[in-house]
């Protein structure tokens, strides 16, 4: 084992959008679930529970959408771990080797996890899907939101989706994707923890500080 190198892997825009996403997804899921199924009923008409839930949902919808756009822009300017290619491991031969290797590690067919400085290839593929799910969620959400003002801005941009997929179809999609994202979050936290133990390079702390401790010998 040679000397560990300290590498700046996750630049600040990556970390910032990551944590904005975390907060947004938590707030949007809780308020969104309440909007779909108001599990608290209040005795007084002067309360404003649903009103606040919807208000928060709309505020964080904007936060989430802006975070998504910021991350998309960073795909062009970030380091090699933040760019488009990092999320398409299937595009290269090495990528394929690592996909298979990581798959074998997860299915207990291989003892040692293939070493990755940035995203491991399976995670990168999951993030590609999640990035698209985020987009569907943002688009369907703003299309539904736009219904309060027919002819307004959001109705003008996404109103045609209400014609194509129907009002209720969009609503159902919006609900189901929330659950997919909750499922993803469970997997994501677990896998990050697992890799923190197995890769031994500071995976968990890297999303807070951005640094990883890389063994140059292990890098392929």
């Amino acid at each position, binding site marked *: *084992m040679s000397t560990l190198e300290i590498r700046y892997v996750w630049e600040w825009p990556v970390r910032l959008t990551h944590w904005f996403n975390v907060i947004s997804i938590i707030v949007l899921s809780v308020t969104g*679930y309440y909007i*779909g*199924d*108001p599990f*608290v*009923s*209040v*005795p*007084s*008409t*002067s*309360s*404003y*529970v*649903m*009103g606040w839930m919807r208000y928060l949902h709309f505020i964080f919808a904007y936060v989430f959408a802006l975070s998504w756009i910021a991350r998309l822009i960073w795909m062009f300017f970030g380091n090699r771990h933040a760019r488009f290619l990092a999320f398409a491991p299937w595009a290269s031969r090495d990528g394929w080797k690592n996909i298979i290797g990581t798959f074998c590690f*997860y299915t*207990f067919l291989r*003892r*040692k996890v293939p070493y990755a400085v940035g995203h491991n290839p399976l995670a990168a593929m999951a993030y590609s899907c999640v990035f698209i799910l985020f987009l569907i969620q943002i688009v369907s959400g703003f299309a539904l939101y736009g*219904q*309060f003002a*027919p*002819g307004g801005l959001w109705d003008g941009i996404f*109103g*045609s989706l*209400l*014609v194509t997929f*129907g*009002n*209720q*179809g969009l*609503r*159902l999609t919006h*609900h*189901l994707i*929330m*659950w*997919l994202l*909750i*499922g993803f979050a*469970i*997997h994501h936290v*677990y*896998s990050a*923890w*697992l890799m923190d*133990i*197995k890769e*031994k390079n500071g995976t968990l702390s890297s999303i807070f500080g951005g640094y990883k401790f890389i*063994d140059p010998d292990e890098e392929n």
Partner: protein
Amino acid sequence: MHDPEKTLLEGSVSEEILQKWEARGVNRRDFLKFCSVMTASLALPATFMGQIAEAMEADNRPPVIWMEFQGCTGDTEAFLRANQPTAAEIILDYLSIDYHETIMAAAGHQDEAAKNATVEKYKGKYIAIVEGSIPMADGGVYCTVAGNSALNIAREVCGNAAATIAVGTCASYGGLPAAAPNPTGAVSVSEAVPGATVLNLPGCPLNAENLTAAIVHFLTFGKLPATDSFGRPKFAYGKRIHDNCERRAHFDAGQYAEGFGDAGHRQGWCLYKLGCKGPETFHNCPTIRYNEGSSWPVQAGHGCIGCSEPQFWDSMTPFYRRLPQVPGFGVEATADKIGLGLAAATAVAFGAHGVASALRKDDDSTVKRED
């Protein structure tokens, strides 16, 4: 500057017109009420009242052909029973209804001849009204009138009309006959006759007030009112039921009836959790209401079922739940139950994976142990 006196003057209806209507048996008060209700329904300023009264007076009675296909005559019923300021009287007196299967006196060859004569004589000038959807499957054999298919009749009559008004959800979007599995291949008028100028007035039944207003608009301005992306007039379908609902304050507060007859329901709380589709339905029910403005479903204590939306019935059922069924799952599986199951399964799977990973011996060759 706004000048109330000028408004009054422009909006006034001339004595001459009022006297003519009195001679026809409609008293002036009723006629003025009719004109003001129409002006308000069309969301026009009060100054247009005089113009509307004059349009009703002009000698250009457009002939009307009212066709019934795959429908239940509910829209005819709704229209004939319209008596808010004697709307039916005024409109029925005014229009020349040359063909209407439910109310015409003629029968058989006689009425077919009347219809054909109108289409010939007033080509491009008459109004076609269609009630019910049009079956397309198997060459349109599932609905025929006088030996001709609904499809052929619609193509001929709507294709040659100045304007076509599709009344009710069936004619507007296919409605109940078009619900899955749609055995007759039922479609809306605008789908069956793509070239026709069609105004959709969905609703089950449509609100007669909106039909009257649409006709008055056509008579006053010589064209159909402005429509949204579903071909519905904006004056009647421009706002969501939810946004004009009298129970909206309870929705925002967080007060919901949980079951029919429970304490919340008796207090008039929001019907959201009973599956009310007001948040997904665009219609003027809360402001115009039905039957002389006496009531509408939500006021009567039942949630909206979204009857005037495209894809009603399929997308609005189950009526007592918020969301449609998830395709491929059973009746009892809601989106949230399936989602919760998915999340739980993920947690269990990764939990098991974690246990297995913890028990497995790692390659620790590079790790230095602390003493």
